[in-house]
């Protein structure tokens, strides 16, 4: 059984998969792992090639759009140690097309689909739970600490929704930011983050939202368990309506 290694980057992962699919007669029989550079590490290192990585993604997208979407969501999770599963999944996706998502009895498919679903779920949840605050200069800022690295797709979502305003997304843990202004979207990192001053009416609008949040619940039907299962407490930190609870 052949063992392959790659450099640990996303491009490296995808380009090694592309290389193996090209060169190995039976890709489902080989393994792929991140190179650790330990003394007795065995395996053949595949060099990273960004164009190869990209072309793999586009070919998969044409061949099995749904599987390519799963691959994309899986990559958001930045999971290590599942490279072999991903390799087998992509190989199966080229073989079976989009039907592969039903092949849940296969351990590699199940593992990849599971992780992809979790990342996809958080992305969908965040589209609702993200909260913008209006700053003194009229721009809007939303801070978040998601489990997965979802800032890219999230920013694209808001770029078609909040088109008329200037806004920032900031992933506090990863120090990554997205900025939308005058029709262009940019990504970058922020080394030193200082919280900017809020606009004058911001607290007033927040108080209105808090009041709405309180009154819209039916008092006879309090159900904190259901509330928490739909909206886990780890997201409360930046929720205006959950401040002071």
């Amino acid at each position, binding site marked *: 059984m052949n063992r392959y290694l790659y450099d640990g980057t996303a491009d490296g992962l995808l380009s090694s998969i592309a290389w193996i699919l090209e060169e190995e007669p039976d890709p489902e029989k080989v393994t792929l792992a991140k190179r650790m550079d330990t003394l007795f590490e065995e395996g053949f290192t595949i060099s990273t090639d960004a164009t190869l990585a990209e072309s793999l993604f586009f070919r998969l997208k044409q061949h099995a759009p749904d599987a390519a979407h799963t691959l994309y969501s899986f990559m958001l999770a930045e999971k290590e140690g599942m490279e072999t599963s991903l390799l087998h999944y992509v190989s199966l996706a080229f073989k*079976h097309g989009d*039907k592969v*998502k*039903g*092949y*849940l*009895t*296969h351990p590699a498919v*199940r593992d990849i689909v599971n992780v992809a679903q979790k990342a996809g779920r958080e992305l*969908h949840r965040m*589209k*609702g*739970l*993200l*909260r*913008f*605050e*209006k700053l003194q200069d009229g721009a*809007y800022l*939303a801070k978040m600490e998601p489990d997965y690295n979802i800032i890219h797709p999230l920013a694209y979502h*808001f770029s*078609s*929704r*909040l*088109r*008329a*305003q200037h806004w920032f997304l900031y992933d506090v843990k990863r120090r990554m930011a997205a900025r939308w202004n005058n029709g262009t979207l940019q990504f970058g990192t922020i080394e030193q983050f200082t919280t900017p001053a809020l606009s004058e009416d911001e607290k007033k*609008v927040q*108080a*209105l*939202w808090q*009041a*709405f*949040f*309180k*009154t*819209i*619940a*039916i008092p*006879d*039907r*309090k*159900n*904190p*368990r*259901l*509330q928490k299962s*739909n*909206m886990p407490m780890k997201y409360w930190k930046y*929720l*205006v*309506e959950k401040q002071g609870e």
Partner: protein
Amino acid sequence: MDILEKLQILSGAARYDASCASSGSRREGPACGTGNTSSSGICHSWADDGRCISLLKILLSNDCIYDCAYCVNRSTNPVERASFTAREVIDLTLDFYRRNYIEGLFLSSAVMQSPDQTMERMVMVAEALRTEEQFGGYIHMKIIPGCSRDLVRKAGLYADRISVNIELPSQASLQRLAPQKHKHAILEPMALIGREIATSLLERKASRRAPRFAPAGQSTQMIIGASPENDFQILRLSQGLYKKMNLKRVYYSAYVPVIADNRLPVLAAPPLLREHRLYQADWLLRFYGFSAEEILSDDAPHLDESFDPKTAWALRHPEFFPVEINRADYATLLRVPGIGVLSAKRIVAARRFSRITPEGLKKIGVVIKRAKYFITCSGRSFENPDQPPALIRQRLLLGESSEAPMSILPKQLVLPGLIA
């Protein structure tokens, strides 16, 4: 009165409205404006009662000239009254939307001076949001029964979804509890909306520039437990609304006793379990290929309290089971208690690759706690196949496999002389 107080009064008055859905519409949104809608709908928060908050749900006014027995806002009830100006609603909507608190606006109202005058003011809000503010988010508008056809048409042009509340499941109850509302004033706009939606869909097939009419369809709502109709009557009514009027959703709202009235039943608590069972039965109508007549009958017109309606059906139809997981078609799989749309689809998809074994069933994430009494898997059964239904009934009830118990089982007490 300041805006905060108004918001408290007018969102508090709207909270009993069950529908919150923001799905079913895809609106790109104007290039220079704010907002779009997504076809799957987005929840922005979950309230303390566990319900999804997706829309700014408010009444334009709670100052009502009508006197519906079941309603807090009835004219004879001494509650504080408030009305928003159009500007206030527009600003609230935009301020909330820009901060990503909401998907859009859900606007309803009490009848202020007349149905026409009220509806006109509601339409004005929607019109200003769409045209002056270039708002592309979701708008759900209630139609005030008795308003003119023109206003209904205008509402449909600006809103994603419009709805007319049926309120009560029969004409007799309507007459007794909401004497100012007439059946035809409710059904007529529903039919009109249905026709307009159908025409708009046809026109948009011919030309994508044709105006859209309520692209997310129409829904309605009825109050459960304030009047004596049984579940069978209610389900048949819903079935008719789905089939004949092409409604997207029927919402059921457990009657919450807000004021005493000798025309109303005395309830210890809102009939939540009954509402829950009706929603389950409604799913069976919409997604599982059941008819109201399969779920209930004149001899057994009430939904079972202990079992969900699908399990209840399965227990009455032992001849249908066991179902073989590897052979049964999708529609048959859907009839197995405990197997939902997702599980049935997974089973069908996984079968393409290999026969499913009992272990495989677990691997693809199908929970068989309830299903195990009703299926075989590659010819093997999980349970003794010859158990009489009565025994399965008992085991389901007592065993690990019953649903999470509802903490309160409100019993409905009906006052003597109420049943017509």
